[in-house]
């Protein structure tokens, strides 16, 4: 028996001795030489040609390295055991959209020859990092720290910090659903920088697909950028179309941001080291892009991103100009002055800007949430997307929006629908159709807690059971949106033709204009974002028409909603009347509340512009209380408006009549709260003009 074991051991040793050199041999570097491939002359020649072409791209510039990949892959198929080729292939992948593929080649290069390149341990760390193998990444970054004469621009300590952040974020993922927008939108080329209207009905994005305007190729080997547009119909995106000239040109034209109503588009141009242009949708035509923000934004340095605030009174933009700069690209803001000019740009300060780059700024229509990308803060690698909230005039500490939205690779250009439920961004994920695709992210918020129940029978003498009281779980929705989207079409009441009307949003409490928009002249469509927490007066005006008045009262906690409201404007004709929805009285009294001032001012303007116009102000009540009481109350209320116009605005008394109709002219049934509210109203009617 012992003899048998001895024999077995001997055989095993021989086996080991046989294997060992083979194993060592497989680790050895194999050069592309005739000596190594004596029987494959032509294949060797072809492989060397591929190497040369690959090298020409690899050595030219970092942004061209990805072009070397196809050639290197062919050479590598012929000879997979060359350390330098594997290194360069891996390194090239690190400069391509498919960075995670770098790992296998860098690992192989390192196995064959750990000294093939001075920086290989760093790049290997980076490849592990990009594959979210954070512990391995840290191991190699630490190895690189021990390397003498390191490259100055490689910072292994920062990368290790990012890896630790990555470990935390991956262990605590946010609940999202990430879906490729599919082949109707995405092509096998690059799509990115998707921008949406607040209601997600229109999306514009940048693509480098072949049918771009001019169809020529830029010096990075790809087609020039073009802007494409798609609209959502029946829950599906229509085939995208290139925006016509003058937006798209033969050169790079890239989306940056779209206003909430889809009427204004920021575009990037390479000119002047990078500038931001603005194009406006006039009817069905996009205007010729012009420099955005007067002199406040573009400089001789690079301006690369910009976004309007929801009220279009501020533009947030990204620049690397040295003024007031914390390092690299920073986010600045310029505000629209009373004189209609954009004010001096201000840096958002060190809460937002770091010594590293910030970019991809996006202001949510809720008026208080900013998303931006940064290489600083608590990123898990390259750029991550962060969120900051404007609270009492200050931006909160940016919060990483989490994995899997963020990854170790670059994550930028993140836009969020007004509802707070959907985000759009581009990525080179595994399931991408092309090099980078546009993805829809459904933001689900933290997982909700279910509730278990048990019940006890407290009494034997009774069948009464007591279900144990439930302490209901918290509703925690990080992406909760408190904004109302009011949208619809403005038309002529008689002809139903769309109107290019002016829409003025007023904060009734402060009697301040919040913002001014216009409906589209071709479609009459309008869309306004109204952050919760205000009582809004909405006045739609157009020359030759009676103004239209709407009121939207939004308590601070009001969650996202979409209100569709088509508005018809009546021409200034005798007998026409409108409801003044922003006139408010004290309860059961005829005293005007201060929130009514803006509406009465509009009425005053109408009377001033039409000096011969005579009007009747009438007031109506619901049917609560006696007829006589309501008639008197309504008459006094109408008189309050007349008195304000006469006493405060100087309108001649003989131009104004007033009448209290009590509840004799209801416009809705009085059997519901809503109906009664509609019936309590003040109107005016044109008596002559």
């Amino acid at each position: 028996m012992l003899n048998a074991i001895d024999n077995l051991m001997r055989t095993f040793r021989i086996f080991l001795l046989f294997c060992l050199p083979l194993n060592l041999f497989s680790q050895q570097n194999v050069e592309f030489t005739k000596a190594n491939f004596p029987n494959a002359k032509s294949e060797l020649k072809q492989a060397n040609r591929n190497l040369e072409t690959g090298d020409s791209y690899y050595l030219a510039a970092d942004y061209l390295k990805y072009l070397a990949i196809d050639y290197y892959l062919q050479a590598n198929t012929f000879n997979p055991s060359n350390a330098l080729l594997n290194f360069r292939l891996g390194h090239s992948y690190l400069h391509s959209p498919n960075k995670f593929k770098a790992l296998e080649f860098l690992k192989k290069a390192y196995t064959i020859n750990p000294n093939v390149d001075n920086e290989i341990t760093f790049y290997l760390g980076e490849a592990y990092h990009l594959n979210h193998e954070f512990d391995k990444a840290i191991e190699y970054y630490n190895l690189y720290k021990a390397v003498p004469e390191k490259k100055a621009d490689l910072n292994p300590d920062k990368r290790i910090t990012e890896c630790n952040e990555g470990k935390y974020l991956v262990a605590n993922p946010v609940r999202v659903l990430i879906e490729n927008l599919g082949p109707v939108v995405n092509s096998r080329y690059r799509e990115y920088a998707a921008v949406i209207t607040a209601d997600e009905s229109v999306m514009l994005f940048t693509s480098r697909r072949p049918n771009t305007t001019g169809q020529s190729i830029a010096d990075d080997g790809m087609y020039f950028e073009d802007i494409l547009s798609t609209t959502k119909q029946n829950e599906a995106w229509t085939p995208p179309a290139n925006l016509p000239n003058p937006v798209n040109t033969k050169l790079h034209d890239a989306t940056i941001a779209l206003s909430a109503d889809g009427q204004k588009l920021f575009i990037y141009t390479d000119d002047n080291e990078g500038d931001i242009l603005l194009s406006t949708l006039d009817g069905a035509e996009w205007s010729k892009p012009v420099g955005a923000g007067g002199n406040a934004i573009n400089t001789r340095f690079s301006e690369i991103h910009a976004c309007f605030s929801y009220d279009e009174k501020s533009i947030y933009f990204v620049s690397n100009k040295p003024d007031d700069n914390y390092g690299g690209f920073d986010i600045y803001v310029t505000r629209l002055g009373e004189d209609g000019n954009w004010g001096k740009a201000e840096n958002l300060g060190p809460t937002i800007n770091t010594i590293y780059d910030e970019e991809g700024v996006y202001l949510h229509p809720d008026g208080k949430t900013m998303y931006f990308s940064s290489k600083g803060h608590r990123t898990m690698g390259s750029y991550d997307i962060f969120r900051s909230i404007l609270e009492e005039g200050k931006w909160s500490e940016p919060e990483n929006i989490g994995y899997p939205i963020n990854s170790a690779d670059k994550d930028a250009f993140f836009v969020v629908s007004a509802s707070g439920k959907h985000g759009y961004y581009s990525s080179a994920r595994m399931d991408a159709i092309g090099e980078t695709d546009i993805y829809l992210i459904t933001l689900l918020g933290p997982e909700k807690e279910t509730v278990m129940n048990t019940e006890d029978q407290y009494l034997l003498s009774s069948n009464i059971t007591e279900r144990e009281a439930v302490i209901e779980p918290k509703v925690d929705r990080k992406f909760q949106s408190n904004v109302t989207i009011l949208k619809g079409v403005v038309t002529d009441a008689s002809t139903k033709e769309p109107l290019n009307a002016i829409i003025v949003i007023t904060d009734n409490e402060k009697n301040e204009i919040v913002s001014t928009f216009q409906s589209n002249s071709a479609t009459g469509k309008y869309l306004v974002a109204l952050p919760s927490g205000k009582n809004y007066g909405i006045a739609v005006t157009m020359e030759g028409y009676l103004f239209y008045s709407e009121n939207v009262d939004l308590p601070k906690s009001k969650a996202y909603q979409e209100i569709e409201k088509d508005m018809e404007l009546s021409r200034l004709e005798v007998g026409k009347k409108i409801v003044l929805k922003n006139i408010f009285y004290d309860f059961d009294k005829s005293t005007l509340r201060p929130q009514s001032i803006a509406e009465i001012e509009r009425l005053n303007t109408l009377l001033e512009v039409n000096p011969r116009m005579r009007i009747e102000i009438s007031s109506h009540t619901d049917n609560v209380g006696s007829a006589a009481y309501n008639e008197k109350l309504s008459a006094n209320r109408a008189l309050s408006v007349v008195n304000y116009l006469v006493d405060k605005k100087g309108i001649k008394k003989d131009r104004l009549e007033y009448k209290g109709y009590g509840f004799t002219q209801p416009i809705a049934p009085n059997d519901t709260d809503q109906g009664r509210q509609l019936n309590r109203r003040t109107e005016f009617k044109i008596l002559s003009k």
Partner: protein
Amino acid sequence: MKNFLLIVSLICSLSLYSQNEEAVEVYNQGITLYNERNFKEALLSFNKAIELDPLFSKAWFNRAVCKTDLKDYKGAISDFNKNIELDTIIDRALFSRAQVKYLDGDKEGALQDFKLSASKNPQDADASYFAGGICYELGLYKEAVEEFTKAIESKSDFAEAYHDRAGAKRQISDFDGAIADYRQATRLRPKMVIAYNNLGSVLRQKGDLQAALVEFNYAVQADPSESSSFVKRGRLKYDMEDFEGAMADFNKAIQNNPKDVYAFNNRGCLKNKQKDYAGALADFDQAIKLDSSYGYAFMNRGIAKENLNDLTGACNDWKNATGLGVSIANQFVDAECN
């Protein structure tokens, strides 16, 4: 009230309470007919006895009992009143009238009669016990504790009174008192499953999970065929993060009683926690099938549907749950369904 409280029993014999022989004869016939469950004929006999001897108090009593069985509660109460008027020993009639008043929906009247009955016969622990039960039902928990205490004073081994007093003490947040009473009830009646379960629930609510587990273990041992003990122990194990044990208990509860809605709901919650969303959905479906007014099952099913990316279905369920009084579901609707 459980049925045993509602059985109003007949007075048998005692014919000597009438001097009228004919009345006594028909009275005895009435008793025979009643015992044959021929209530209508028995009623006629008692009618005749009363007609022959209007002062025949026991005939009034027995006719009241007959009327109770014929669901003529008002008539029964009227006859008990007459018996009380005529008789010298009235605690039994008061007790029975209390029972009939309770059946007639007059809880306050029943309570008064039970209290009166107990005062007439302090040895009758049942009258105080039932008075305690009615106080509880009327939300008079402190008074219930007092009545149950009287019952215990009359009968020191009254395990049911200890148990029910514990329930009333829970309602006034006297949890330590409740624990002591439940323990006494289980000492007096070691097979009282409900007492172990209630004791376990109070201990769990107080945060003493290990002690609660001991009690639920006793409950399960005392009656392994019951489902609610397993549901309760399963929930406790879930709280203690013993998910495997919780699953086994919920499975056993469902095996014991395939109509236990809480077992399905709670197992659904566990499956949801374990990310078996389809399994959770099936359990919530079953809970709702068994009880279509079970709001939390709708809310939970909405959560499972959301996890399965069926937002439309989730919103429908949350809206239903809101309609069934689950306020948090309304917040989900606000947050997710606009």
